């Protein structure tokens, strides 16, 4: 089962690379998404999944991340054929193959219980997404791809050094050398603390670069600004969640080594710092796609902050990964539609999206309200849970700072979003041929309904899985 989960997308990627017709190839992407979603459903519902002598394991934490990433990819994949049909001039061979390869590699990251294998898979997601960023073949997308590739690879190289440090912390104490997660969690109390500390810092910097935590976030505005909306959504929802999972794995080891206080302090600091950086740059942001990138930096900060606080906030952070990802789906895809309709992503040119795009425009506005934590959206519930956790932990100052930063981001993003959606569309905008069409708005509507539904009612199975994941993270095995 574990093999199927990541080999099926990779196989389809191979098929996509081999198929000669540009017209039918994009349909492989939703096919792959659907197949992966079905397999994920079977894996979650069925017997425990393990393979390769414990190298691949579906634990309670990976169940949550896998279910989320699979859903995210499926909804995004529905958008792909119609999007690529708008670009008949360009071969989509590399694009489709890389999308499917990215899904396969993300699955491998989620399943991997061997830290070396996980590293290889995360680096592979970087490499698979680089051609996706370059799809538009402009000088700006070239610049964004170069920065993404170089900063990402350097970050990941530091993570490899951190992984080696971690392995050495066991050798140093005369233990059997290992990089298997379960062994390391088990051996954690005996690991050499100085090496463990150095390892955690390097790993947080390394995988934090991939996740886009400040101050390692500099690739993010460029990459999200230039990437097609579809790719932006997958990066903001999928790849960053995988990097988050990687950080959680190392947090687990630190926690078991009685070093939780050390790890938590760093996580809280870097979380708040990311939120603060996002708040500074989101104000007066005239490029609405770059604005989304800073929003992503902010929410990655919220995720690690939640883990740093612990307790109820851990549950909140895991829920927030899902609600934020779904809302980002709404925002990136509708922003892509607006960008196409106006042939610009600058608020100097883009006004009146509510009139110009009667479905994408309102969805963009609604997505903004949800992502900034307005009730009854999903992110409201998850952010509120993190807030409650912070107050329960007696960290009133952090709670106050958290609320202040959320408010600043709300105002900053609001100014940009309102300029986009209100007013009268310019003549140039009305002249572009693009109109809202069902294939390009139905996936956004599905994202919207899911994100809204999670704010109103969280289904019991999801609560159970989230609880199990939080318990697994906080206390070894539930």
């Amino acid at each position, binding site marked *: 089962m574990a093999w199927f989960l990541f080999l099926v997308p990779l196989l389809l990627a191979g098929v996509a690379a081999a198929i000669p017709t540009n017209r039918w190839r994009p349909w492989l992407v939703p096919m792959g998404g659907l197949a992966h979603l079905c397999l994920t459903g079977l894996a979650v519902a069925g017997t425990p999944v393990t393979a390769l002598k414990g190298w691949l394991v579906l634990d309670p934490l990976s169940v949550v991340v896998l279910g989320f990433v699979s859903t995210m990819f499926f909804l995004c994949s529905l958008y792909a054929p119609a999007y690529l049909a708008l670009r008949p001039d360009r071969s989509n061979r590399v694009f489709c193959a890389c999308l499917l390869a990215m899904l396969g590699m993300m699955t491998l990251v989620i399943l991997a219980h061997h830290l*070396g294998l996980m590293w290889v898979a995360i680096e592979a997601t970087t*490499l698979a997404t680089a051609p996706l960023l370059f799809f538009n073949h402009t000088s700006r997308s*070239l*610049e964004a791809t170069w920065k993404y*590739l*170089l900063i990402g690879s350097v970050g990941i190289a530091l993570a490899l050094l951190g992984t*080696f440090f971690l392995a050495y912390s066991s050798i140093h104490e005369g233990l059997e*050398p290992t990089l298997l997660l379960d062994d390391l969690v088990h051996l954690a109390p005996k690991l050499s603390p100085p090496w463990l500390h150095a390892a955690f810092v390097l790993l947080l910097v390394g995988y934090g670069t991939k996740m886009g935590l400040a101050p390692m976030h500099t690739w993010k505005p460029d990459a999200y600004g230039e990437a097609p909306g579809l790719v932006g959504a997958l990066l903001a929802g999928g790849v960053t969640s995988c990097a988050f999972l990687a950080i959680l794995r190392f947090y687990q080891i630190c926690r078991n080594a009685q070093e939780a206080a050390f790890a938590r302090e760093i996580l809280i600091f870097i979380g708040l710092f990311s939120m603060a950086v996002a708040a500074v740059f989101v104000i007066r942001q005239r490029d609405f796609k770059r604005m989304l990138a800073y929003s992503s930096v902010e929410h990655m900060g919220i995720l690690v902050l939640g883990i740093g606080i612990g307790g109820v906030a851990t549950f909140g952070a895991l829920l927030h990964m899902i609600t934020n990802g779904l809302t980002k789906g709404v925002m990136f895809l509708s922003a892509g539609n607006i960008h196409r309709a106006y042939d610009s992503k600058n608020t100097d040119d883009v006004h009146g999206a509510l009139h110009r795009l009667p479905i994408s425009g309102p969805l963009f506005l609604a997505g903004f309200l949800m992502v900034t934590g307005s009730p009854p959206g999903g992110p409201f519930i998850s952010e509120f849970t993190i807030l409650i956790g912070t107050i329960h932990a007696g960290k009133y100052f952090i709670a106050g700072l958290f609320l202040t930063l959320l408010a600043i981001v709300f105002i900053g993003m609001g100014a940009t979003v309102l300029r986009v959606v209100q007013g009268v569309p310019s003549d140039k905008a009305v002249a572009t041929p693009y109109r809202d069409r069902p294939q390009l708005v139905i996936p956004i509507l599905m994202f919207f309904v899911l994100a809204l539904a999670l704010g109103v009612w969280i289904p019991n199975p999801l609560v159970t899985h989230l609880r199990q994941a939080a318990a697994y993270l906080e206390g070894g095995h539930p």
Partner: protein
Amino acid sequence: MNKFIDPILVLVLLLNFVALGASRMRTVIQAVAVQGMLLGILIALAHGHLIFWVAMMALATIFLKGVVIPRMLFDAIRDVVIRREVEPIVGFIASLFLGAVGTGLAVLFSRTLPIDHGEMGSLIVPAALSTVLTGFLMLTTRTKAITQVVGYLILENGVFIFGMLLMEAVPFLVELGVLLDLFVAIFVMGIIIHKISREFSSVSTQMLSELKE
């Protein structure tokens, strides 16, 4: 066998300085190629007895880091019509000085970490850290895209040296995966360098400054 490890690490460190001080791009790439080959030899030495997998791994490292990747970089500077000088932001003397300071700091930092000098040379951790720092220095102070890639390679080499301490912990499947990832990364970077040179008629990353706040 072990008595060769430390001298090789000293050579690796010297090559860092060659890469930092050289003004011609060819010399920089050659230095990294030799460094890559030395790493392959180190793998063979670190294990003592040569079993099949170790030999495979050593050969793969020598072949990829010493031959294939340098060839790709040489092809890149040949295809792209550019001036063959390095053009640093920080001068060569200053780079060398910073490199020396970095090496000193690496030695000091590795003293603070508990290391047992068992069968391995005592230089492994300082050599690894100072090579990582050299890579960083190249990445940040050189403007050409190709020299940045070389910086990334040196950084990876540093991580690789540290990996010598963990030969038993890291299975060959993973090591091969790491090498493969490195190869593909350089390959993709090579393609992008090519596109950059066509788009901007230059491979200086100072041209890449359109995206900013």
